[in-house]
């Protein structure tokens, strides 16, 4: 995960509509992650095939 103020080069393969290999089987990546500062990202399942992401932080920041 990157934070604000950081950047990365992420070259990726060009795909076309109906490209059967254009999947990312690891997406979404469920779990808890730390973003910039004290921001927490929690990726969960909604139970119906969809995902939900909670972004949370201490209220008196930044």
């Amino acid at each position: 995960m990157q934070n604000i103020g950081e950047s990365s080069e992420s070259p990726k393969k060009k795909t076309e509509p109906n490209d059967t290999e254009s999947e990312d089987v690891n997406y979404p990546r469920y779990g808890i992650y730390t973003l910039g500062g004290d921001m927490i990202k929690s990726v969960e399942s909604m139970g119906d095939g969809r995902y939900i992401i909670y972004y949370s932080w201490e209220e008196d920041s930044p």
Partner: protein
Amino acid sequence: MSEMRWDPFLEEWVVSSTHRSERPLLPEKSCPLCPGVLEVAKDYQIVVFENRYPSFYRHPPMPDVESRGLFKAASSQGVCEVVLYTSQHDLSLADLPQGHIFKLIEAWRDRYCELGNLPYVDYVYIFENKGEVIGVTLSHPHGQIYAFPFIPPKISRELAIANHHFARKGKCLYCSHLEAEIADGERIVLENNFFVVSVPFFARYPYETRVYPRRHLGSLEEISGEEAWGMSLTLKELLNAYDSLFGYSFPYIMSIYQSPTDGARHEYFHLHIDFYPPMRAADKQKIPAGCEVGTGTFLNDTAPEAKAKELRDALHRWREKRDGR
């Protein structure tokens, strides 16, 4: 049915999603975006989830029709997300504290990076439709993200022109536009150390505005902490200028334009945010009609310079109220 159909005349995709007609209208009793009602089980600060009624799917069905001759169809692979700005139903983006908007920018940035890295996503479009006149079906403060499997046509055309300008002049077209607006000055609405807002010289809507970072950034991925803080202040002030204009929560479409994520280099592209409010007066709408829809040519019956002054005055009123003067 959910699929993309090719328009061979304009050479662009049309996305057909028949299930989207099942979306609820503004609910009278309970909001499905409030905590514990339908979509979000618990209280939250900012939440992003996959749209129940998407136009694009991570695992799309095959098209209902077979491609044949002129009639070309493709599966609609992509991602559609809903971004809930806050759990508080009666607020808007303008009402949120600047620190909360800063966190929202960080969430937008995270979504841009993550969705843009998916192999089938060529363009990540973050936007908000606000107000019933825009056709919003849920009033809870929220925006959306469409992760497209192609670069949408309006953006594609703009990219080609910006690329050509960059190749010819060795300079970013957007940086040149920003410098020209600052030099003219008449259409500037607000500016700070990091961002500038103007009613563009070529505005299509009376109260249209464009927000530029002063630095040449392609996307939120490149934004610094200071710039993100400046962006949160810029959005806070601009949206409150809109709300102060006629004394009600102003409707708009907000479009965040960032560099494509198709794997190619787009160093000539410059992040910008456009607001397209559908009003031409307090009680009169600007509805794209025969000329706009039929020909693509917009008719603006106002002067951008006059509208920029109205917005500056509205911002001044809001700042005075904020500062207790």
